[in-house]
């Protein structure tokens, strides 16, 4: 057609390719590009900048403008559970979050409820020290629910504002491990309130990130996502599907391995970075 004269088929393919390469998945990429083509035709937009603006708008539309992006802190001790598959950055993220909360004047305690991974407690201990938080841990191999429960009692007794529970990485396909996670939540909720269940997703993950989110949401409920390792070249486009299909808000992003490398998730900035 004469309209859309600014972009030929190859150029539209390139736009779709850019989205695919950002890990949005083929479905989202195709849908966004066909929406943009239709809008460009209707509005008579033919220039490259105009098309890019439409792309940003169509991507942004997939993020709820009114989603609760702040972390929910309830009456003390508020409990936040941190979950996700292996190696996504849970333990490191807890260190960052604790430091951020301490800077807001909150007293934080961490629970080393990953009792499986070699030296997990030592790793979390290092982060607790850096963040100025306390740590509750048991012996390796202890029951994770017991660690969390014990940490809650400690938090209540010492008047901590916030308890952050670190859990072992687990593949979402492993039913006994997902059941264990659900049990950890139930154990904590006997005596306390879980105000956040943060799913830590690795931005370098492809379409499997959506499957992870779906499974963790089913097992424990997920109130927010932390998207880590955005300081690489991966764009984390799977976040679009996580928000749009599951309605789970991305709350934070990890942008490095240091204590301060944590930022609030801002849909507009994310979309701009995705489009490059």
């Amino acid at each position, binding site marked *: 057609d004469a309209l859309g004269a600014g972009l030929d088929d190859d150029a539209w393919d390139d736009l779709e390719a850019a989205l695919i390469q950002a890990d949005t998945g083929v479905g989202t990429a195709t849908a966004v590009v066909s929406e943009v083509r239709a809008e460009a035709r209707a509005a008579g937009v033919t220039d490259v900048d105009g098309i890019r603006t439409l792309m940003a708008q169509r991507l942004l539309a997939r993020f709820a403008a009114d989603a609760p992006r702040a972390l929910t802190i309830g009456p003390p001790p508020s409990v936040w559970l941190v979950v996700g*598959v292996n190696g996504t950055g849970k333990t490191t993220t807890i260190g960052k979050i604790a430091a951020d909360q301490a800077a807001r004047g909150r007293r934080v305690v961490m629970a080393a409820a990953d009792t499986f991974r070699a030296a997990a407690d030592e*790793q979390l*201990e290092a982060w607790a020290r850096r963040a100025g938080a306390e740590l509750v841990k048991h012996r390796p191999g202890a029951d994770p629910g017991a660690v969390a429960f014990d940490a809650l009692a400690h938090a209540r007794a010492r008047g901590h504002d916030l308890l952050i529970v670190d859990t072992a990485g687990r*593949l*979402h396909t492993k039913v006994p491990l997902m059941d264990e996670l659900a049990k950890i939540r139930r154990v904590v909720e006997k005596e306390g309130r879980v105000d956040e269940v943060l799913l830590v997703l*690795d931005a370098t993950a492809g*379409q499997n990130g959506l499957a992870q989110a779906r499974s963790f949401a089913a097992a424990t409920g997920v109130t927010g996502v932390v998207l880590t*390792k955005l300081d690489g070249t991966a764009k984390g486009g799977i976040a679009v599907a996580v928000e749009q299909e599951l309605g789970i808000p991305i709350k934070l992003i990890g942008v490095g391995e240091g204590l301060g490398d944590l930022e609030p998730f801002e849909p507009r900035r994310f979309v701009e970075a995705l489009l490059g």
Partner: protein
Amino acid sequence: SLSSRFDDIFTRLRNRGRLSDKQVDEVLREIRLALLEADVSLRVVKAFVADVRERAQGAEIHKSLSPAQQVIKIVNEALIGVLGGEAKGLVPVDAPPRVILMAGLQGSGKTTAAAKLAKHLRGKGRRPLLAACDLRRPAATSQLQLLGEQAGVPVHAEPGATDAPAVARRALEEAHAENLTDVIVDTSGRMHVDPELMAELGAVARAVEPHETLLVCDAMTGQDAVNVAEAFLEEVEVTGVVLTKLDGDARGGAALSMSYVTGCPVKFAGVGEKLDDLEPFHPDRMASRILG
């Protein structure tokens, strides 16, 4: 599944003695979609599909295979070829110790893979040494020491050290002194776009001249796999890929991207968190997993 989607295409289109261009086009579209859904990087998908097109176009129809089976066979063989052909082991070495360098992004599974490899080698009667050259991550050395203990393998560790290439070199000296057969060097996870960390990796490699450099990659890695593979290949001489967390349900297309870009076979598969959970990589099984 892909094969049932192919069957649909071929029942709809009439068959002659050869695969028609139209049949090939439709089939290639399905393959492209399947590969992208499996997280194969777009650039690799395009090159792979172009290659399959060439092989399929004008291919004779075999009497014993349906056209759908025919195309599946072509795609499968092409996939297996890129993934490294039959299962490839570690490079053999005349004068021990063999030096194996583990490299990759943060959290990909290097430390666990290093310990698994050590245990596997010990099981074959070899005498490996693990070298703790991740001097950055909190408790990395303790993690490797604990895993080494579990594997029954000694660990060269220098708590408080800050010079990774020097630690690697001293580990190699220890292996020589103790007449050990393999040195497996664990390194910190690093972003391929971090110049300082990539330079450090290069320095570690130059310090010990590995016979085998394994790029460790998480099976859930998406489109970024090509960028990672290219960047690591620029810094060190990658000789193999280890694909981890294959016990999940990620399709694992990163395997194709990584071997395509590095020109190296995937040598091992991580299939669990325990130290026994390491398998030689099976390209044929991976091919059907990727195709879905």
